[in-house]
């Protein structure tokens, strides 16, 4: 009898862990890295959000809507990647329901407007692990071949945060997708009513 209860309990725990792992790994563009030690929580002067950035990347301050940039350190000026965190004031707060295909299109249009050299714009609404966001991708000519841009738009109250991740297209899937996915999944805006 006791062994049966233990077995059942184990089954439940395993299924819960499996479900968590499943949800965490459901989207390759929004999930924590298998090597979390490669990331560190950024030390920021604001308490409006928290984020984990790659440990060996250089953080640089931003200007106007750009809060900060995290740039990969390379040797011999090799093609490099970067993550830019922006904020945009919203004229009206957006609810979770407001994050829809239309908003995704507006975000894509805005990206096209900000980066006229971009092409192959695509936009989606994603909801992963309780976070609903707009996901925009496009490509552009970079310093050394084509770059891919992956953009996460996460509204929070009167502010829309954008995580703009740029990497050489050739290395995106192999090397940078997981990094970008971890940074996005670690981004936690402070709840609007708490700030």
């Amino acid at each position, binding site marked *: 009898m006791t062994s049966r209860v233990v077995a059942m309990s184990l089954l439940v725990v395993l299924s819960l862990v499996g479900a968590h792992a499943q949800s965490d790994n459901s989207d390759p563009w929004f999930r924590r890295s298998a090597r979390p030690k490669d990331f560190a929580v950024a030390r920021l002067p604001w308490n409006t959000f928290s984020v984990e950035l790659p440990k060996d990347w250089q953080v640089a301050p931003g200007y106007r809507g750009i809060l900060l940039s995290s740039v990969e350190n390379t040797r011999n000026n090799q093609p490099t990647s970067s993550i830019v965190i922006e904020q945009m004031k919203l004229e009206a707060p*957006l609810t979770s329901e407001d994050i829809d295909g239309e908003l995704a299109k507006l975000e894509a249009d805005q990206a096209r407007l900000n980066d006229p050299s971009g092409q192959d714009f695509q936009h989606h609404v994603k909801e992963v692990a309780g976070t609903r966001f707009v996901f925009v991708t496009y490509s552009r000519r970079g310093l050394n071949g084509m770059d891919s841009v992956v953009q996460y738009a996460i509204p929070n109250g009167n502010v829309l945060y954008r995580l703009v991740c740029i990497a050489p297209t050739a290395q995106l899937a192999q090397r940078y997708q997981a990094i970008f996915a971890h940074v996005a999944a670690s981004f936690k805006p402070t709840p609007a009513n708490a700030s």
Partner: protein
Amino acid sequence: MARLLVFRGETLGQELDLAQLPLTIGRGPANDLVLEDPVKSVSREHAEIRLEGGRYVLTDRGSENGIWVAGRRLPSVAFEPDTVASIGPFRLKIEGLTAGPTQVSTPVPPGRASWATGAFARRLTPQHKRVVGGALALVAVGTLAVAGVVVRSARERERAANETAASIVAARFQLDRGSCAEALAQNIQPALTKDPNNKDLLSLKQRAEGCLTLVPPPPAPPPVSPVEAALASVREVMAQGQCDEALVQQIVAILTSEPDNADALALKAEAQKCVITPVRPSAPAPKAPVLAQRIPPKDGGLEPLPGELDRDYQNRVGIMRQRYEEAVTAASKGADRSIVDALEAIARDATPQYLNVSANLAAARRSFAETAQRILGEAQELARKGQWNESLQKYSEAKEVDPSLSIDADVRKIQDSKKQAGLAACRSARQKLTYAPKEVPDLYRQVLELLTPDEECYQAAQRALTPK
């Protein structure tokens, strides 16, 4: 000098001296007296006035409408002071006549002296003069006697003419009543003995004889004198309210032969009053009530109610017919539920066999059902296009045409879709406030159209659109 007065109605139109005779009268311009008459009741050469036996005589010249005096058509008339002759709408009267024949003096030609003062007279001795004077006196007396006879003869002729005219009137009256034998015996034959060639009398005699061959003689009525018959005729005309000046003149003619006839005098007064105040025909006597006669429903009739009068029944039939005609006319313009209701009511209130009500009702039902389905289809199409308000309006129209339609579920679905569209517009407005603010007012206007005032976004839209 006698003067001819010409009246038209009561108005004196012309006045002329009767210096040159004969005086021709007619519509033609060549006449001495031209009577212009657009309706041509006056002939071109209608009549003429001559001096005959010292009297002015108006003679018909073969006109179509003749000369009328005192209600009688006469071939000629000798004017008396009170004689009024009618030619068409004109009335002629001669003024300046003396009673009796007019004395016509022959003027002495200039240069010729009178026999009593001439040379011939101067040659006679006083004895001769006495003899001649006596002879002349005898001649004068004889002449006066002859003149008296002539005058008396003229008066007798006139009286005879009047009596003949009265006999003709009386005979006509009797013939009209079918008293043919009396007319012949009492009026026509006696008058013919005095005036055997009178055409009117001969015509009446022929008529009376024809009548006698057809109708057996009735029992002899009390004899009627010509004057009484004429008075009876006048009374009959007056009873019909047809009193006019001619009628008065007819009575005057009767009084000419019997001036003291009390009946004629009374009738004359009555007729004159009647001319002034025309007698209106009296209202018809009320008819006895008649019970309704049933008309079959297929002919537009209804079932009579117990004891219903025909007048009331006809009234009901008329009202029902009017209802039916109105419903059928309305149905021909496009049926809706109210027309079907009206026809159903007629079929119920009359019977389904009433005229073509059943066929019309069936056609109206088909028509209104088709109409309702067509509108319903339009409503659904508008809903598919997202024109929610227009769609709901069409659903409402379809329901109005056919209240039996079940549209509640569809309407709820559309209202829900409309609300969702409103919320989407609201969401879009919130998004575009940041990304495309110029598009926001239109979105808020959509919100006001699509949402109800109790929605939060509706109020937000109202606030946003209210000028600050």
